[in-house]
């Protein structure tokens, strides 16, 4: 891992910071960007972001550990996030979790050995009309059943 971030990212961060009267307000959007490039937020990224936004690293970690979308551990190439909130459960979401665990050979919260998939439970994704739903990285998939899941996984490169 290079200690520096790409010049493009640096520029984007500066742009983001300029949208607020205090640059530290850009923390969440900046962490999203950094995580996009680095895959996760370790102490190295925390210190980097802290330096760019005029914060102490501890304040960055407070934020990283509060929000579910920031990862401190390496994720698989595809992060499969299955909703297990109320409507998705009413529509059979839990069965899909079982199916995915069997199909991928991994458990909730774990990553497959080939590091391709990480499987998680998430709360309501805001797509309840298509329950049961899941999110793969940032892509939403709804009205799922075993066949659809098979098709989606097949399509991933």
């Amino acid at each position, binding site marked *: 891992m290079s200690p520096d971030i790409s010049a493009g990212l640096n520029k984007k961060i500066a742009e983001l910071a300029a949208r607020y009267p*205090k640059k530290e307000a850009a923390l969440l959007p900046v962490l999203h960007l950094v995580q996009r490039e680095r895959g996760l937020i370790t102490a190295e990224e925390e210190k980097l972001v802290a330096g760019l936004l005029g914060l102490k690293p501890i304040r960055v970690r407070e934020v990283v550990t509060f929000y579910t979308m920031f990862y401190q551990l390496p994720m698989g190439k595809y992060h499969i996030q299955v909703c297990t909130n109320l409507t998705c459960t*009413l529509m059979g979401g839990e069965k899909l979790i079982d199916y995915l665990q069997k199909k991928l050979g991994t458990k909730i919260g774990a990553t497959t050995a080939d590091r391709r998939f990480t499987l998680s439970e998430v709360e309501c994704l805001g797509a309840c*009309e*298509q329950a049961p739903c899941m999110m793969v990285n940032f892509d939403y998939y709804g009205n799922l059943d075993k066949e659809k899941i098979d098709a989606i996984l097949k399509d991933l490169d």
Partner: protein
Amino acid sequence: MSGVEDKVLTQNFGLENLYKVDVYLQQGGYQALKKALKEMTPGQVMEEVKKAGLRGRGGAGFPAGMKWSFVPHKVDQPKLLCVNADEGEPGTFKDRYILSHNPHLLIEGIVIAAFAVGIHTAYIYIRGEYEAVAQRLEAAIAEAYQKSFLGKNILERGFELDLFVHRGAGAYICGEETALLESLEGKRGHPRLKPPFPASVGLFQCPTVINNVETLANVPFIIGKGARWFLDHGLPRDGGTRIFGVSGPVVRPGIYELPVGTSLREIIFSHAGGLKPGKKLKAVIPGGMSAPILRADEIDIKMDCESLAAAGSMLGSAAIIVIDEETPILDVLLKVAKFYSHESCGQCTPCRIGTSWIYKIIKRLMAGDGERGDVDELVRLASNIKGKTLCPMGDAAAMPVISLTQKFRTELESSLKNQ
């Protein structure tokens, strides 16, 4: 009754590329903005919105015009607007539709609102999961800047507004307005003590208005067609339409824009097609997970803030979750308890510890280890949370537990070992 002419916000949702500014303009978009900036004063705009009885559509139902008027007129600090696009209330997905199908409607509403209050910087706080939606929103904003609907000297009327998208990162609590402000400032989403209220001390300590997406999306119609027209579409003190979201084992889950006050039965059985074949209605959560549940025999009720409040529930985000007879209420209770204990920010004692305690009891019940008195204990704990917390999430966590145990006590107690 309802028909095509009842659709206000969603009237053009079927149109392809409505999210593109040219298509939006073709449908008459940004005319209301022109009217506001060219023919009205900020005060007149605010009055019109007040008269229209526009209530907040995020969950709290607070009158929007009144909220705007709380911002002091003359202040040294800049006034700010935050658009709450966090949409975290389970069962809710309506704002996603507005944001992805008709972002310019929202932008137009934002500019008019900003004009009314004297705001020159606005942020849309959008939940982190809505990545694709956020990208569409950013594209629409860029178009709006290009066409001079945003930026300096909007429509050559000297009004200036900057609009930015700010992504959240996975925290339901950031839908609570003061937690949203904290998150926007780059911090953990910890709700703030009120008073002071955001209208005086808000984002970056400046006077701030926070409005839900759907609320602001109504503003162009109120200005374009007038408060009277808006009220006629709804109820005397609660004008306009609501975008009801129906989910669960119904034939046609989805969004249904209908006048405020439409009957719940009508929404579920007429518009959403009723329960799927072979399924019978057991209960309905009328306004997102935080709203107290209604039994199958309680759905002859008008879906407006006052009627639902009178029935001991709430309109909330108008997210209707339909529950069928095959679903054990204990399962529903489990999902409720799990959700709030996961989403508790952890700041205040009753919510941080109470939601976890309740979740533990329910897990024990699920495992078949429930004992006599456990159901009473759930009510007792929930009552120790309700009204005692720093923010309304405590009530949101407590009310479903109380209402589920109240209305389905027999069923729940049958799951205990020794009654």
